[in-house]
């Protein structure tokens, strides 16, 4: 064995890696070390170096990352995932709002279309048919609405009300003094304000009176 060969195998640790070499090679290395003082000195130096390495290994054997690193990492982890959650929530909320807006617009448009269609039908009914059911007479905007005897049996719209379909409305008969009609915005004969009368009120789906008539 030459010195170069010895250097490449003779410095192996006497543990794991030395056993990887075959016995003949190990024997040959040992013989070379016995013959060559230079290689023997090298081997000895390396043994010393190995002891020093062992000491270094021992001093760093139980070394661990300081606790502050874990704290920093966990803080960063928390921040990162909180931000991500907040962003997801914001995106979800934005989508929900957009969907709600679209739905609202769609429903509003549909209602508007239905209202338009019903309005046309009602107007046609008022004009073309002699409906036996209670009908609503639009208030004459040029004159003050007056509850007069000759429109008995027909509803008179209260001021501020619009003609509308009466399907969803209810008719409520109430007793009141004639003067109370003025509170509904109707003109009343001053001389008979204290008379008790019965009137039918047409109450809309919103619970407000829309029209009034004197029952037959």
């Amino acid at each position, binding site marked *: 064995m030459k*010195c*170069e060969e010895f*250097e*490449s195998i003779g*410095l192996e*640790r006497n543990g*794991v*890696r030395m056993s990887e070499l075959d016995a003949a090679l190990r024997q040959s290395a040992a013989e070379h070390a016995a013959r060559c003082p*230079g290689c023997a*000195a*090298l081997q000895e*130096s*390396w043994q*010393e*170096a*190995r*002891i*020093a*390495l062992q*000491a*270094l*290994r*021992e*001093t*760093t*054997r*139980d*070394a*661990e*990352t*300081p606790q502050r*690193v*874990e704290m*920093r*990492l*966990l803080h*960063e*982890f*928390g921040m*990162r*995932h909180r931000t*991500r*959650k907040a962003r997801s929530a914001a995106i979800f909320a934005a989508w929900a709002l957009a969907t709600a807006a679209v739905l609202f617009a769609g429903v509003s448009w549909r209602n508007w279309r239905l209202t338009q269609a019903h309005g046309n039908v009602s107007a046609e009914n008022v004009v073309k048919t002699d409906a036996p059911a209670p009908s609503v007479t639009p208030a004459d905007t040029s004159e003050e609405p007056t509850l007069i005897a000759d429109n008995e049996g027909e509803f008179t719209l209260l001021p501020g009300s619009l003609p509308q379909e009466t399907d969803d409305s209810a008719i409520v008969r109430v007793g009141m003094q004639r003067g109370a009609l003025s509170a509904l915005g109707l003109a009343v004969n001053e001389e008979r304000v204290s008379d008790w009368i019965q009137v039918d009120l047409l109450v809309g789906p919103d619970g407000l009176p829309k029209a009034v008539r004197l029952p037959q």
Partner: protein
Amino acid sequence: MSIPEQDRDDVLLRRAAKGDQESFTLLYRRHQAALYRFALRMTGNSWAAEEVVQDVFMTLMREPKKYDLARGPVGAYLFGITRNRVMKHLERLPRELSLEEPNGNGARTNEAAVNRFTPVHWAEQQERSERVRAAVSELPAEFREAVVLCELEELSYEEAAQLSGCPIGTIRSRLHRGRALLLAKLEILRDAPRRVSAAR
């Protein structure tokens, strides 16, 4: 004995990616010490080692999907990142702060183990350890890596080659050169006559 499914590194990593802090903590505690020791032995500086480990886990936190189970276990993946960071650090700071001040901070040594010895023994060991630490820190990065992996981490050639991403033959030759340089440096440090072939 097999590790339960829920405790496997890749499962923990998947959960951590979804925001499970407990899984991330478990993963960190499982691997930090080995990575820190390697970084410490390579850089010879506890601050640098600390920074490297932190950087490794920040990368894992930022880009957990970069890990591919098919390419190996999470430990090897983390070691690969650590190795890259250490090499970058060594490139960035050649020779700078390679020798840490003795007792510079508490994270450096295994004080409890050291204190078991007598003061003389302790002093000798400290001196020897400092000498060798200085010598290791002055080795070129690739030789240092081979020495750290094979001599300090006590890995087999195969394991060291796998972690370094190079063939076994390369590790062998790097280790051989590393040892020769290390010996030369140690002989210089103690003013011993130097063998010419060792310093080649």
